[in-house]
């Protein structure tokens, strides 16, 4: 056991990377849920994005195109959920589960010829001047562009929900779809757009796993990351700022347990591997215990909308 081998600087830098896939998937799901739709298929969309991104990246040799492909793959799959829940009014919980089961099957079918293949690497960008700052430089300013894309998306969603008129409409649809419909807003169209955005974000998150984190294609590469993203949305009380905290908390636990495994601490590997999931449960419990009566969930979350007139 050698804890001194763990460098705090590298740990924090790795935390930023570990948090990114979850952050991407969670920010997309946050928008979906703020529009009043509960899509439990994040895991399925993530793994589909992971393989779509991987296939495109390998065949074109461009990681950037890979991420684009992942976003498209995730969005297309999410629209399947959209059509079922919005037009055919199916139960959102059941359809989300179906999306996950379907997505996992689809991904392992698509990924058959890609096990053990190497993907093109994603270059890191050293931001000039800033990356030379001691300690803070390596932690904050020496990552690949997707890390910053994730952060930018969180800020953009925050601004959109808070400052933009369209964000206000989206929130109105999520809080009370009957009232929003009465005001003339296209509830179903807005929700479909939100669902597609969520799917694209989940796809990006999945591709980050298969192209950067791992980086190769293995079955079950997401290992529950989509479900953790869902938990983080609840943990964040549907607010982008807190979502950042949740994603870094989870990223920190993941990185710490991996480092402890490498340092051969006298704790069974299995206990360390299960710790991110246990921490997620504890975080959910702490939040729900504190919240008490007033729930901050969007008012129409998970309900089907059927315009009778």
């Amino acid at each position, binding site marked *: 056991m050698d804890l001194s081998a763990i460098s705090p600087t590298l740990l924090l830098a790795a935390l930023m990377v570990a948090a990114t896939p979850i952050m991407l998937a969670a920010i997309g799901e946050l928008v979906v849920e703020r529009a009043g739709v509960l899509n*439990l298929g994040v895991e399925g969309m993530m793994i589909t994005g992971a393989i779509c991104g991987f296939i495109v990246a390998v065949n074109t040799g461009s990681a950037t195109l890979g991420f684009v492909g992942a976003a498209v793959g995730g969005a297309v799959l999410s629209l*399947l959920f959209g059509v*079922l829940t919005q037009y*055919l*009014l*199916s*139960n959102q*919980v*059941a*359809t989300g*589960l*179906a*999306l996950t*089961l*379907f*997505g*996992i*099957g*689809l991904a*392992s*079918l698509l990924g*058959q010829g890609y096990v053990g293949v190497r993907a093109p690497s994603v270059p890191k960008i050293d931001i000039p001047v800033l990356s030379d700052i001691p300690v803070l430089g390596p932690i904050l300013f020496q990552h690949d562009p997707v890390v910053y894309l994730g952060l930018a998306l969180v800020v953009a969603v925050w601004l959109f929900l808070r400052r933009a008129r369209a964000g206000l409409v989206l929130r109105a649809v999520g809080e009370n779809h009957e009232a929003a419909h009465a005001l003339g807003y296209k509830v179903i169209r807005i929700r479909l757009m939100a669902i597609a955005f969520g799917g694209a974000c989940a796809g990006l998150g999945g591709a980050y796993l298969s192209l950067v984190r791992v980086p190769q294609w293995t079955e079950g590469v997401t*290992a*529950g990351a989509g*479900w*953790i993203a*869902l*938990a983080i949305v*609840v943990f964040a009380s549907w607010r982008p700022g807190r979502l950042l905290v949740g994603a870094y908390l989870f990223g920190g636990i993941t990185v710490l347990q991996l480092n402890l495994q490498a340092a051969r601490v006298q704790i*069974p590997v*299995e*206990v360390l*591997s*299960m710790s991110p*999931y*246990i921490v*997620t*449960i504890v975080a*959910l*419990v702490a939040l*729900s*215990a504190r*919240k008490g009566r007033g729930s901050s969930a969007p008012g129409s979350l998970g309900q089907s909308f*059927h315009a*009778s007139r």
Partner: protein
Amino acid sequence: MQVIRLEKRPQPSQVWTWATPLLAVLATMIAGGILFAILGKDPFEAIRTIFWDPLFGEFSSYSRPQLLVKAGPLILIAVGLSLGFRAGIWNIGAEGQYIMGAICAAAVALAAYPSESVLIFPAMIVAGALGGLFWAMIPAFLRVRFGTNEILVSLMLVYVAENILAYMALGPLRNPEGMGFPGSRNLSQYPAAANLELLPGTGMHWGVVAALVAVIFGYILLSRHILGFQIRLAGQSPRAAAFSGVNPARLILICLGAAGALAGLAGMFEVAGPAGRISIDFNVGYGFTAIIVAFLGRLHPAGILLAGLLMALTYIGGELAQLTLGLPTAAIQLFQGMLLFFLLAVDVLTNYRIRFARREAA
């Protein structure tokens, strides 16, 4: 201009309730056929290999018993899940409860090894049910006490249970005579603990008997007992249930507890029979497939019985198609996912009427 409109039915249609699963199976066969054609297989041969050959083909004497072996755990778990799903309680962590039931039951048997007592098998049944029950009580208690979302907690616990399984297979439950290989002793070769075929050549074992008992009890509970009425009421109208004095906390504990105990039992029968031992890859996703079975069976015990058999058929047929046609395993997984999708899609016919109307002038 013609437009399609949906009109809500005052009552869910009785006819469509039972016709939609058949329609969904048909649609899945067509879509699956297209999928198999894209993969370069003859679609008709593939569909026949999956749905016909396991029962009546040349290898059917081997594959037919497998039908009950695979359907047993699916039905057992799905009956438990259906109670919660009806009441709007979403336990999706049956896979974890299944694993914990198997571990507890195997631990009891291995602790007693090599005793030949007749009490070992009953003790394993109790341990298996309690293991699953305990694992399901975690999300149930957290939901009742703190209002924590049971969907996420029960699912997270699957990953925790998988790690416990790996720990047990490599550590405390490892076969001391296994020359260091991971995995426990083979329980199916330990007569006092083995869950063997009851009728040779049928695949019938105690787990299948338990599944049939669960179907009968589930039916009586839902149609004849006040608790079943409360479960249905809570799902259809939570407000009406509250006014009629249904205690939601009690319902959550009962529904999750029953599902957990049944999933634990399924794990126990599996580890003592078909699987034989605790190993890292002991769980094969029955807990997740059972969700499809529950919905395909319309959350009704009799429907679940049929849906479980059908889903078991796709497993066996899928294996057969893999052997004879080289169809990838993942294609079957996708096929099962498609089935649930189609079912949810055509379900709109149960609750809504489709009207073709002329668009009115604005």
